[in-house]
Structures are given as structure tokens and as C-alpha cells.
């Protein structure tokens, strides 16, 4: 299959009514050569190289509306980064439709590139040896940001991300978290209206993760930007995204509200209770996940939650009781597990 064939998309003039991001039956197939171990295989490979087609993204569809923050989830290798790269114009789709702000991304139209950004948490665009402010100035010239706008945006970003003391230090002397903040600022100086964030909080400590998270929410609120975010930290997703899109093996598994996801994929609830009797045997009420010092965690079928709760309160000297949905990590894990054979 020719992976370079043109995507069958009709270019439309950018319009405000159409979705900001539109993906339909999007596919990306990588052709990789495969080689067995051993001398014979190496010789065979010289004559005839075996090619293998790997569908990284295998027919996904979704739209994003203006100002949405959507969590884009999936395990490693699910096709998230490939999709983000197709959306930002770095990768050419093998098939399907993709438009962003009405533009076909891979054509890399200059006015398209001026309105988007892609932050890759594991890669850096800042010049390593010089202070971040110099890279910012270079970006200002590249994006042709008028000096007044640049000043204002820089001040805002400096304020929101607390960049003040970092701007004039060589980037190589910054900590991972400090560098990430500068990377994000560099990517947003031209005030993009569509923001693709690929693992923006990877490797950061909890405090820094929270700061970046708050910043993303604030950027979205202030500028009405549409944001598609991938993260392995569910705290990011819970804090920022009402809607999530989940993919696995390049296919769409779920697209909807986070709360619906929990409803749809969990058959259990967790009851955490503190009882006066530390020796109590609660196995008849549900699956005991943990116990100690009179504090028990029970897993009970969702339909029986009310009934079990009532029985617990009646039968035992309950000091405290809390009914919870299972942690979001567990829900997501369950989604992936269902997809796997």
C-alpha cells in the first residue's frame, strides 16, 4: 500500500461553524521491514526485504468543538502521538479525512501553522545552551508576533507559569519541570487557538504537574483555545477534561463524558468503612480489598450497593462510610482489558 497517497479530503475554506478538529475514518499505516535472526535470514533479507504493514491508527473518527479540552487516552503504542502528528501536519494520513480549522494539516499552510501548536513532553524545541528568553525572541520573529502582543503574552505566560527567574538562565541549567514550563511558554507565544499536548506533564513531580494542569485550564479559559491532551496521569484528565476519547491498537474504544465512561465500564463500586470492631468478618457483604485497624475497603456489584450499604449500617457499629467509584486508572484498565482478546 502506498502510504504517501493523498488523503481523500476536499479542502474547504476555513469556516467558524464547522468543528475545529474533524477526523473521519483516519488511518495511518507504517511500513516496516522485518528481519529474522540468523545468517540465512540476513542473506535472504539482502535479496528480498520483508515488509510489514503496521496500522498505527486504524480508522478513527471524532470531532472537537471550539474551546473544548478533550483527554486523548490509550496505552503506549495506541496511536495517540501518531494521531496528534497527523493533526498538526507532521504526518501524512494513509487514508481518511482530517481537517483542523478547516485546513488540511499535512499541506502545512502557513496560516494554519500560525494558529496551532504541538507540545511534545519528551522532546525539546528550546535551544539548549542559551536562556529561554532568546528562544522566545526567535519564535516571536518566526511567528511574526507584533512586539506589543508579544510583550503582553509573555507577561501573561510569565505570570501564569511563574517563569520570572527562569527566563535568563541557560536552558541546560533548568530542572525538568522548569524546562517544561519554558517549553510550554515557547509553544504558546503566538497564542495558538488549537493546542495539541502530548504528555505535557511526563516525568514531573506532583506539584509541578498540578501547576501545569492549572495553567492549561487557565489558557483554555482565557483564550478559548481548543485543546487535545494526552496523558498517562489520570489526575490531569480528571482535572481538565469533561470528555475523553480512548483509543487502543489504533481503534476508537470510547468517546464521551468521563462520567459516562465510569458508568459504562464499571460494574462495581467501592465502599470504604470504618467500624468499631476490628475483627469483623465482612466477606459476606462483598469482596474485601483491604482491611486494617477497623478500616475496610469492599468491592460490591453496582446494583447491590444500596442494599449492602443498608445491611452494613444495620449489622455493624459503623463509624464512617463512603461509597466511591473505582479509581479512574482502574476504569481505564478495564476498558483496555475488554478490548484485548
Amino acid at each position, binding site marked *: 500500500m502506498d502510504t*504517501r497517497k493523498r488523503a481523500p479530503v476536499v479542502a474547504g475554506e476555513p469556516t467558524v461553524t464547522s468543528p475545529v478538529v474533524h477526523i473521519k475514518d483516519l488511518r495511518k499505516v507504517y*511500513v516496516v521491514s522485518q528481519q529474522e535472526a540468523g545468517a540465512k535470514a540476513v542473506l535472504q533479507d539482502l535479496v528480498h526485504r520483508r515488509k510489514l504493514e503496521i496500522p498505527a491508527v486504524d480508522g478513527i473518527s471524532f470531532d472537537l468543538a471550539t474551546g473544548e479540552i478533550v483527554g486523548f487516552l490509550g496505552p503506549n503504542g495506541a496511536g495517540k502521538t501518531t494521531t496528534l502528528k497527523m493533526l498538526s501536519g507532521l*504526518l501524512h494520513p494513509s487514508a481518511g479525512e482530517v481537517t483542523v480549522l478547516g485546513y488540511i494539516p499535512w499541506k502545512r499552510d*502557513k496560516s494554519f501553522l500560525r494558529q496551532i501548536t504541538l507540545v511534545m513532553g519528551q522532546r525539546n524545541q528550546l535551544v539548549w545552551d542559551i536562556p529561554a528568553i532568546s528562544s522566545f*525572541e526567535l519564535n516571536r520573529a518566526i511567528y511574526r508576533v507584533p512586539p506589543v502582543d508579544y510583550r503582553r503574552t509573555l507577561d501573561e505566560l510569565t505570570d501564569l507559569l511563574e517563569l520570572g527567574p527562569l527566563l535568563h538562565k541557560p536552558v541546560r541549567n533548568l530542572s525538568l519541570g522548569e524546562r517544561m514550563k519554558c517549553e510550554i511558554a515557547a509553544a504558546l507565544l503566538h497564542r495558538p487557538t488549537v493546542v495539541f499536548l502530548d504528555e505535557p506533564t511526563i516525568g514531573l513531580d506532583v506539584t509541578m504537574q498540578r501547576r501545569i494542569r492549572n495553567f492549561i485550564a487557565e489558557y483554555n479559559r482565557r483564550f478559548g483555545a481548543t485543546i487535545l491532551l494526552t496523558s498517562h496521569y489520570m489526575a490531569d484528565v480528571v482535572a481538565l477534561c469533561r470528555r475523553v476519547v480512548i483509543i487502543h491498537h489504533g481503534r476508537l474504544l470510547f468517546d464521551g463524558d468521563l462520567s459516562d465512561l465510569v458508568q459504562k465500564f464499571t460494574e462495581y463500586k467501592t465502599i470504604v468503612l470504618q467500624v468499631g470492631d476490628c475483627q469483623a468478618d465482612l466477606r459476606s457483604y462483598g469482596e474485601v480489598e483491604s482491611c486494617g485497624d477497623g478500616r475496610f475497603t469492599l468491592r460490591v456489584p453496582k446494583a447491590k450497593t444500596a442494599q449492602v450499604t443498608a445491611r452494613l449500617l444495620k449489622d455493624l457499629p459503623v463509624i464512617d462510610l463512603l461509597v466511591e467509584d473505582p479509581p479512574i486508572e482502574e476504569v481505564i484498565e478495564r476498558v483496555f482489558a475488554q478490548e484485548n482478546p
Partner: protein
Amino acid sequence: MKALAELYTQQFKTTLAMMFQYRAALVIWMIGQVLEPLVYLIVWSIVSKNSGGSIGSYTTSDFAAYFIVLMLVNQFTYTWIMYEFEYRVREGILSFALLKPVHPIHSDIADNASSKLITLPTMILIAAGLALGFHVSISPAPWAVAVFIPVLLLAFLVRFLLEWTLAQAAFWTTRVSAINQTYFVLMLFLSGQMAPLTLLPHPVQVAAAILPFRWMIGFPVELLLGRLTLTQALTGLGAQVAWLLLGFVLLRLVWRAGVRNYSAVGA
């Protein structure tokens, strides 16, 4: 145009800041740039002395003049993009450049020109010192000096465009060092870097006239040394313009195909 001028100015500042971060590396790099022509200068001077004071039309002092001017021309036209591009592709740095609304070649031209501006004064001083040491004097005709300026600029542009184009081999293979090596050997031999081209066998001179290498280095050197007639100089200028146009077309074609390939196999 104004925006582009601003981009070049900003890139100049960035390059300047980067170069001053690594002053020691800068000095070592300049020593390398001086050493190579100096070695050839010494070798040819000895050979010339042992052959009775001259080889072909070059006296011992002419050899010194040739390699000192060559050192400056090479410094002016030199690029490092062929080493750099492969790294950019391999490390995915190119992706950031592709996300920007400006062709990445602008940053490279600006970066190259900036570092030349910074190192050129030192190189001129070194060349002057060498000229004194080797008792060299050159007295080109005023027209040759006038033509030399556009010729040197064209030499830089031709070399830059062709090497930028060749560097894009990195889009298709991660092992570009073999290509680079072949290119540099051809360059050494056919540009006049190793020996003045008029001293080489006739077939080599014909090849050198057809291929672009001479027009990047040897030709400006010969012009400034007063070894060319006006007709030869203008013919050479024509060859440079032809290579510039060809280089421009090649660059556009290869870039388009390269980006297409990059975006097909995984940027």
C-alpha cells in the same frame, strides 16, 4: 521582507549567544580551518622548492598565496549542514522546524552567515599574518576585485544550496556518513582544495569545469590571484549562476520529496 529581515536579525543574536557559550570550541574549530590549507601550503612549497622553485605556473610564493586565499574563501563558503541534518532527522528536532510557518532553510542561512561574520575578522588577521610570514603579495586588477565580491557570494550560495540539498539524504537513510565522505573526497580533489586545478591532468580539469566544486572554491581563489582573464571570469560567473538556479530547483524538488517521505514513515 521586513519579517524575514527580523528573523535573520534574531537568528544572528541567537547564533552569537550560542557561539559565545562555547568559546573554546570556537577557537579549536578555527584552528582546524587554518590547519588544513596550511598543511597543503607547506607540502606544495617543499615540493616546489625541490623542483627548482616552481611547478607549472606556480612558484613557491604563488602556492603560499593560493592556499592563504583558499583558506579565506573556504571559510566564507563552508557549511556544516550535512552533519547537522542527519542529527535533526534522527532526533526528531526537524519536526519542530516543520511546525513553524517559515522554511527552515532561512534559519540555517542566517545561522551560517552569523557565525561567518563573527569568525571572519579573526580569519582575516590569521591570513594577513601568514601572508607576512610566507612573504606573499597579491596584486589583482581592480576589475578582478570588483568581480570577486559577487563571485564569492555566489560561491557561498551554490555551496550552501547544494550541501543543504545533499544533507536531505537523511530523509531516506540514517547512514549518511558514506554519502558525506564521498562528497568531501570529490570536493577535496575537484574544488582545488588539495592542489590548484591547473596542475591536475586535463580530464580532471574538464570534470572540474562541469561539476560544481570548482565554482565553490577554486574559481574565486584563481580570480583574486589574478590568474583569470575577464572572459574566463565572466564565464565562471555564468557557471555559478547556472549552478545556483539548478541548486535552487534541486533543493525544492528534494525538499518536497523528503518531507513527503518523512511524513510518511513517521516524523
